[in-house]
Every structure is written in structure tokens, then in C-alpha cells.
């Protein structure tokens, strides 16, 4: 029996195709993958992300605890700001990638991937020993709804009843508490996973259907509901990693080209220990054995997760982590781990596409950047 989002009835009424995703029954598409993808690039798309995990960290030691538990410097996150970070194991492997929102001086909300939420919560509880913090899994009571795309600022502003000017003024990776039409309280963040401007609305599960319908009514022709399939091609074009594909317990943030999220501190701004520090310092200082790169093809076949990257002799030298026909670029794209010698943009590599060799050109990430 899979878990149902608080918006499940809305999805059924909209005729969504539902699939099992990390134990949840979630919409993979409503109208069509490409139309949904293009709506986000050109206007706006509406996503149900209620499967994502929300873990609240409260208490006098909240900052010290997070500084120890995750690889980023959470003490430096301002009130009402968000930070992309990771939680790593002692060996430096990524347990999950996270967005951490600072709600108050002693209150943070961690958003974790649905598939990893229980693992993240268990790791946090273990790491909280000796710190004065309360950890609460609020995933069931919080719904997360995203409005993404160039029209999203206007739509979310029009959904807001009081202090609507705060929406346009919100910087990227910042969040604020607003009151939506219908006296619905929402914590609205300018964050997303699409490569476009966009907002993520944290609302109570009870009020989620009202917010969902408000977004559709307010957006009118400018917004359509979008499923997980378009979310995946959008994030792939934008070069954003997906846990389980680009990131795993067997990769460090440095492998994925995301070493910048690990903050070791400096003489001027020292940082204490955190879980995985020693292994991550070693990973930083070691010569890389593999590099995460973008791939662009000129043929029709797309690289797909798990396909081997092969050299001129057909020997496997790397692996594709994600791939799809790119709706925006109109050609096959992907991400892959390759040896450093093959990682320069412009290098031609072979991909074993179901027994046939297809040539792809290595390209810098992201493959799509909004103008």
C-alpha cells in the first residue's frame, strides 16, 4: 500500500497517471511530459512535492548541532534564508542532499528526499546525542507545492492576500511567511529544482487542496499541473543532481563536482568538526578518479541511467547517471561519471546504448541556463 499525498484526490480528478515513487503514489504526468516541461520553461508549472520529507530542528543548540551534522556552515544561514547542503557518512559518502531553511534563530527545517527521509532522520537522531535540540518529523503534516517558471512570481503574488509585495522582493534561496487568499498561512521559498525562477510553498496538509486549486485558478492559462517526469527532465537540463543517480553513499560531494557545499573553514573563519570531515578533507586533496560531466548527442538515442561510457576500444570507462531526450535543446542529453582524461568539454565519448555505440560530446554543466 503506497502513501497518498494530501493532494491525491486532486491528481485523480485531473486524470494524472500515478506511479509508485519512494513508497508514494505520485503523478508522473497529467497531460504530457513535453507540454509540462515546456510550460515550466515558458510560463509556469505546478508540482506536488508532498512526498518530500520535512524534519524540524529546534532548540538552543540547533546551530551547533547542524554545524556538526551536515557539511555546510548552517550558522551562517540568515533568518529566512535557505541553503543547499548534504549530510555525509563518516567515510564522506553522501547520505542525502538537503535544503535547510532557517525559520528562527533556534529553528531550522530540513527538506530531505522522500526515499532518504527515514535514513536522514535516523542519522540526525544519532548525531543529536549531547545537543539540546528537538527533532520532529513533520512530513505528514506539511504539504509542499511548487510553482515554477517565469510566470511564477506573478502567480504567487496574485495568490497572496497580505504583503503580496514581499513575493517579488524575495531573493533566490530566501523564504518568508505569507498569508494566501482564504487566510491560508504559507511559508514561501524562492527555491526549486527546475532551473527556472520559482517558488516552493510549505502549507499544512489540511489546506493543501485549497492552495493547489488557488494556484490553478489564479494561474489560469499560464499554469498547468506537472508530474515527476517533467520534473526529472527539467532538473537534468539544469544540471541538478538526483540522489540515487548522481549522488549515493558511494559518492562524495567532490565526485559530483559539488565540493563547494563542504565548508572546512579558514583561519579567519574557523569551523569545528563535522561528521565526515576527515574523509572529505582527504577527498578534497586527492586527485579525482572520476568527474561528473554533461553529455550532448547529435543522434536520436539518449543515454540512460546505468549505460556504460566506453572508450575507442569499447572498454567501459564510466557510467551514465541520468539521460533523456531534452525537450528544450531538442537532442539527447545526460550526465555521466567519466575519468578525468575524458572530462574536458568537447571530448567525444562513446555510450553503449543497448549494444550499439553512440557518440556523445562532453559538455560543461548545466546544459541549460535560463536567460
Amino acid at each position, binding site marked *: 500500500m503506497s502513501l497518498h499525498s494530501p493532494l491525491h484526490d486532486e491528481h485523480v480528478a485531473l486524470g494524472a*497517471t500515478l506511479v509508485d515513487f519512494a513508497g508514494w503514489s505520485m503523478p*508522473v504526468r497529467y497531460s*504530457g*511530459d*513535453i507540454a509540462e516541461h515546456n510550460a515550466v520553461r515558458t510560463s509556469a508549472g505546478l508540482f506536488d512535492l508532498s512526498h518530500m520529507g520535512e524534519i524540524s530542528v529546534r532548540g538552543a543548540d540547533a546551530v551547533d548541532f547542524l554545524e556538526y551534522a551536515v557539511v555546510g556552515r548552517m550558522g551562517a544561514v540568515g533568518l529566512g534564508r535557505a541553503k543547499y547542503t548534504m549530510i555525509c557518512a563518516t567515510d564522506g559518502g553522501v547520505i542525502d542532499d538537503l535544503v535547510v531553511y532557517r525559520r528562527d534563530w533556534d529553528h531550522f527545517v530540513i527538506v530531505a528526499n522522500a526515499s532518504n527521509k527515514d535514513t536522514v532522520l535516523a542519522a540526525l537522531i544519532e548525531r543529536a546525542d549531547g545537543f539540546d535540540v528537538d527533532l520532529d518529523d513533520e512530513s505528514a503534516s506539511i504539504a509542499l507545492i511548487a510553482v515554477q517558471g517565469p510566470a511564477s512570481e506573478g502567480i504567487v503574488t496574485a495568490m497572496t492576500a497580505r504583503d503580496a509585495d514581499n513575493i517579488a522582493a524575495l531573493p533566490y534561496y530566501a523564504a518568508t511567511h505569507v498569508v494566501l487568499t482564504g487566510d491560508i498561512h504559507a511559508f514561501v521559498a524562492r527555491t526549486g529544482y527546475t532551473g527556472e525562477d520559482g517558488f516552493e510553498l510549505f502549507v499544512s496538509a489540511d489546506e493543501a487542496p485549497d492552495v493547489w486549486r488557488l494556484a490553478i485558478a489564479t494561474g489560469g492559462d499560464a499554469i498547468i499541473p506537472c508530474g515527476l*517526469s*517533467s520534473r526529472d527532465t527539467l532538473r537534468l537540463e539544469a544540471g541538478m543532481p538526483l540522489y540515487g543517480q548522481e549522488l549515493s553513499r558511494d559518492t562524495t560531494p567532490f565526485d559530483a563536482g559539488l565540493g563547494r557545499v563542504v565548508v572546512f573553514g579558514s583561519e579567519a573563519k574557523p569551523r569545528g568538526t563535522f561528521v565526515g570531515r576527515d574523509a572529505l578533507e582527504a577527498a578534497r586533496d586527492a586527485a579525482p578518479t572520476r568527474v561528473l560531466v554533461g553529455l550532448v548527442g547529435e543522434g*536520436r538515442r*539518449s543515454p540512460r541511467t546505468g549505460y556504460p561510457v566506453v572508450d575507442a576500444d569499447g572498454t567501459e570507462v564510466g557510467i551514465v547517471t541520468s539521460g*533523456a531526450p531534452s525537450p528544450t535543446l531538442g537532442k539527447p542529453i545526460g550526465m555521466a561519471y567519466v575519468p578525468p582524461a575524458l572530462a574536458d568539454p568537447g571530448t567525444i565519448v562513446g555510450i553503449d546504448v543497448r549494444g550499439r555505440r553512440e557518440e556523445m560530446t562532453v559538455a560543461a554543466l548545466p546544459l541549460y541556463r535560463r536567460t
Partner: protein
Amino acid sequence: MAMIPEELVYSSEHEWVSGDLGEGDEVSVGITEHAADALGDIVYVEGPSLGDTVVAGEVCGELESTKAVSELYSPVSGTVTAVNEKLVAAPESINADAYGAWIFKVELSASADDLLSSEAYGELTA
């Protein structure tokens, strides 16, 4: 609920077959609406080539959507007598009308007796 026309027969690999099913008869083959819905927007179709021999239950091509790749199985055995060239430029016509968009035609080398009725296929995909 995906449509399953009564006048067609089906394979458990989600292909439909239209036409008489005796040895020497020519049939048209496509994929079902259920399969097209599961794949999402189809962007690339590669069926068998004209003159190829196809064998029931064996892979004879592939379909690629933004979401996934799926192998195309031949539901019948015989020789390919036609391929739908329109699908090269417009693979999305399978999503628009799965039962109108035939992918290839086969002259049967043996009668095709073990395909599913619309009712049986409906039970399979229920």
C-alpha cells in the same frame, strides 16, 4: 482508463494486431494505448526494416520517450511488408492515436492463434 478496441487482438507485451490471422495474411502491428500512456511522450520509434523476418515474442525494435526506453516485441511471426515512415517525423502520433498509428505490417509465416482478445488484454492491464 485506456481504450481497448474489441476488433483487435493483443500480445502480453502490449502490442495490438489488426487483420486476419491465418498463414499468408497481412496484419498491422502497433502498441496499445496502455503502453503509450505508460511510456509518455514518444520521441523516437525504431521498428523492423522492410523485408526483415520477425518472430513472435522476440524484440524487433524500440520506442523511446522522455521518460523511458521500451523494447518493441513482435506479436507475430513472418516477413515485414511495410513500415510506417510517418512515425520517423511524427512519433507523437502514437500518443495521439495508439490504435491508428501502425508501426509495421507483417505477412504471417504461421497463423497467430495465441493472441489475446480485448477482454483478456483488459484483464491483463486492469
